[in-house]
């Protein structure tokens, strides 16, 4: 931990793993989907399922999926706000297997698309996104994050990454459809990727889908 992690951060209570961490996971999904989904299902595992009830976890998840920041005072009213904006949501408890005790699986729907993101709140407000759709990863959202669905062809990834002029810190690659030849790539960079680079990536002929999640404003 750094000094600033010890004396902070600013958050809404009651606990960094039950509110701050899960809010950040849900907000990651919000950024990934470029807005509030039409429908969302939260599947809670382990300690989130046991003690999460009534501990504000539900409110933090809803606040995050609606894009609220960690110190937003509307978090405590997020259930009413979700109802007002017509967000259809549900909570379920399920054993997600060998995962961190504070893990949540978020399934969200928007414009006919379905997204699945699984993340763990690993303490002190830190998170680890461990699965995005079928791609397993270890994204802590402290870097600038790009998610790409690409053609799984020789040279594709090199060709695409040529457009990224900043230092790449982590790269995850997973083939999701061998017949259609489709793969998912998650790219984490130290610095923000420039606007023109983003445009170039989006136009690249190997890129089928492109999501610019960015870096969490609440990460120090």
């Amino acid at each position: 931990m750094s000094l600033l992690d010890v004396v902070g951060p600013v958050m809404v209570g009651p606990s960094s793993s039950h509110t701050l961490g899960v809010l950040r996971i849900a907000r990651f999904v919000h950024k990934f989907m470029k807005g509030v989904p039409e429908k969302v299902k939260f599947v809670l595992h382990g300690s989130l399922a046991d003690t999460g009830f009534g501990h504000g976890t539900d409110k933090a998840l809803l606040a995050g999926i609606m894009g609220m920041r960690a110190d937003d005072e509307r978090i405590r009213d997020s259930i009413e706000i979700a109802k007002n904006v017509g967000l259809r949501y549900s909570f379920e408890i399920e054993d997600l297997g060998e995962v961190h005790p504070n893990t949540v699986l978020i399934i969200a729907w928007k414009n006919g698309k379905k997204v699945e993101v699984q993340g763990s709140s690993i303490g002190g407000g830190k998170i680890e996104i461990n699965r995005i759709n079928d791609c397993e990863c270890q994204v802590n959202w402290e870097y600038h994050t790009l998610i790409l669905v690409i053609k799984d062809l020789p040279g594709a990834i090199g060709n695409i990454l040529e457009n990224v002029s900043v230092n790449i810190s982590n790269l995850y690659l997973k083939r999701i459809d061998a017949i259609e030849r489709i793969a998912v790539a998650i790219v984490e960079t130290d610095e923000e990727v420039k606007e023109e680079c983003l445009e170039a990536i989006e136009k690249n002929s190997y890129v089928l889908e492109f999501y610019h999640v960015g870096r969490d404003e609440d990460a120090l």
Partner: protein
Amino acid sequence: MCWNFTMWGVMRMRFEDFINEEKRGRKLPDVILEREMRETGVPIELLRREMVKLLNVMLEESTKQYGKRQRTLSEMAGENGYLMANHRAKMLSEFSHTATTVALSLAESNAAMGRVVACPTGGACGIVPAVLYALKVHMNASMDELLNAFIVAGGLGWVIEKNATISGAEGGCQAEIGTAAAMASALLVYYFTHQGERCAHGAAIALKSMLGLVCDPVGGFVEVPCVKRNGIAVNIAISSAEMALAGIESVIPFDEVVEAMYRVGRSLPESLRETGMGGIATTPTARKIVMEMKKHKKFKW
């Protein structure tokens, strides 16, 4: 600059090292910020600005929540800050009364999903702001003085985090509320003396008095006993700081007390580390309260 390296090449961190730098004529807050810059690469000016932000939120929330009734998640707490604020203290000084009220109020605001600074955690969020606010109100402390004392408190908490833990789940409540009390004590001593060595004595005395404190929240809610522990711990911070100001020294140096705290934490059974399965949490009354809550299905998904 002379830092000690352990055999793995990882920089060790002792409060004593900070004090030694101070003895070479440097200012303690500068020494601490420089260390953070070395570790994270974040420039000192930016760090200072971040610290000011946190300090401002602490003071703002202290003013806003002072003596306010709160509707907490489990409703086991919510009136304590209000009652304390409306009580004329018979024994506590005005300073301590204000600090106690702030500590209770902020801990209750945390339990009601209010905005807090997790210093060092949400459960212990009332203690450090309580002494900052009391210094501002009763000593007319300037923002600069408060900031420097806050950085020293942060450095001291950082040493605890590096050599032990600040998480109740790992080390019990002594690691959370105990750390906050040690930080608040150091903060007060630094404000009055600007001497790192005396801060270490104040902090050591505070942490020693909290050694062995278990984490046993009823129903897993950060309310009982957490809220009142904030109110008590701030008084331990104040009295241990007062002792340090009087020239009383801790026989056992601060860094050794931290190691002792860690050893105690590791020997606590899991039932006494935030699981809600021991201590206060398993008393007959606590069980009854939790059963009632479940019966009313107030917390069904």
